[in-house]
């Protein structure tokens, strides 16, 4: 895995040509990560600033301390943090959403997406209640796909701290989705356990 990353150009960005290759590879996912958090209007500025900062400080990147990916997401997360109010506003809007969804036929993937749309207001509400630290860790894990170690490197915290923050954030999320049955992919009534609404896969 490490060998693959290095072969793909990870770990060498001091040279402008290597930086260009890294930019082309990592800009789209980093942009999307930021855009999902604060919306596309702000994401354009922050994504540009992420890579400008990375360029200025490229000599400081040490492959031995973590992957290039985690380093870039660390810069992005730092920038997003100063847009807390914008992020909270977007989450508050999503939390008020009442999605209207036409149920499609068959296809698990489609069903999951539709259910995810139904869950969106609750997910937004749950994310809105997390602390900045918990949200950073959770979204770096879920949206950026970083491991505990990569999150620790990105946020300059210990791996244990990353693990415990992630655990607390996940617990908060589960609590918000308490009546959702992940196995059956349906909502259940808390008292009776009866399926209500949702999109059962029976």
């Amino acid at each position, binding site marked *: 895995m490490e060998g693959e990353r290095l072969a793909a150009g990870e770990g060498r960005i001091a040279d402008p040509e290597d930086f260009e290759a890294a930019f082309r590879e990592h800009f789209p996912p980093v942009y999307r990560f930021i855009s*999902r958090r604060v919306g596309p209007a702000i994401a354009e500025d922050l994504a540009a600033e992420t890579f400008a900062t990375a360029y200025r400080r490229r000599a400081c990147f040490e492959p031995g301390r973590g992957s290039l990916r985690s380093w870039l997401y660390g810069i992005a997360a730092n920038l997003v943090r100063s847009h807390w109010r914008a992020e909270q506003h977007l989450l508050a809007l999503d939390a008020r959403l009442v999605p209207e969804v036409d149920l499609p036929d068959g296809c698990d993937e489609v069903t999951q997406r539709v259910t995810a749309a139904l869950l969106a207001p609750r997910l937004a509400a749950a994310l809105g209640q997390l602390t900045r630290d918990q949200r950073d860790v959770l979204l770096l894990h879920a949206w950026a796909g970083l491991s505990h170690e990569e999150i620790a490197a990105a946020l300059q915290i210990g791996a244990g701290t990353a693990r415990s923050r992630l655990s607390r954030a996940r617990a908060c999320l589960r609590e918000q989705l308490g009546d959702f049955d992940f196995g059956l992919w349906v909502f259940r009534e808390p008292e009776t356990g009866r399926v209500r609404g949702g999109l059962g896969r029976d």
Partner: protein
Amino acid sequence: MIDEIEVLRLFRDEMPGPSTDAWARARSAVAAARSEEEPARPPCSWPPRSRGPGRWRLLSVAGVAAAVGGLLALVLPASPATRAPGAASAQRARETAYVVSRVAQALSVRAQHNFVGYARTELPPGSVVAARAGHVQVTPGSGAGPRPSAGSVVSWSYRGTGKITEYTATGRRVLDEKITTDMAGARVSVGVSYRDGTWWRTAAGPPPGPPGRTGPPAPVRCGGRDAAIGSGGWAALIHAELGCGRYTPAGRQRVDGVDAIKITGRDGLAVLWVDPATYLPVRALLAFAQERPQTDFRWLPPAQASLALLNVPVPAGFQQVPAPP
């Protein structure tokens, strides 16, 4: 078993990937960072804390002070006794980054919603203007090819719609091309050739690939010997060119009644003058030909009268033909 992380992964998953403008913006930012390279870098933290999010939109007081100081330094010659060479170089790098980024911001796709862009380019003899798929190619002073020489080109642009008109040296209109690109990248062009009484229409869908999974756009060709004017007009062209990072402020000059900031480049644009109040271009000298063709710009409010200038009506009796390749 699916868990809360899997569900969270689907949340806002429809968010699209970076637009062409986002790519160009990031390239401009990196190019600005490249131009501000300093001999002594600040100490490392890992990962680095950024300089703050609002750098492109809301400059800090210190940044503004530095930039104003830099611009003053352009106008007022520095005293060698009071300025160390390293400090002067760093100051110059900062003012380059500041000015270039402000111009790029003034010409971004979002900013193009605020004005109707007008540009007129006087072409040297032997220049060729040709309608292509999705753009009009202007090759100044080439003197090659079977097409008659063009005298000037006028372009209008507003929010993804551009109109390019070619005139002969005697001022006769010979070509109109209107190009519209929507947010997804789908493109419609309507062209009218007054030379032979023909017109054409083309439509092309957006580039393939689902939202958020699109690859990077083709790299901007820095420099070159011609200009491809598309739906974004000169605003898009200059915005892309600035991303090449070869431009440096070079003092002030009075141009067309404006005490403009002069920016020099090696390729593409030899000189660009921008209004210090808006950072919008006032004039440019193109580096495409020895004659350095001149382009003058106007930026108008999007009023009904100026928007009407973007229309390309097809005269009665003109014959529809296949679009040029």
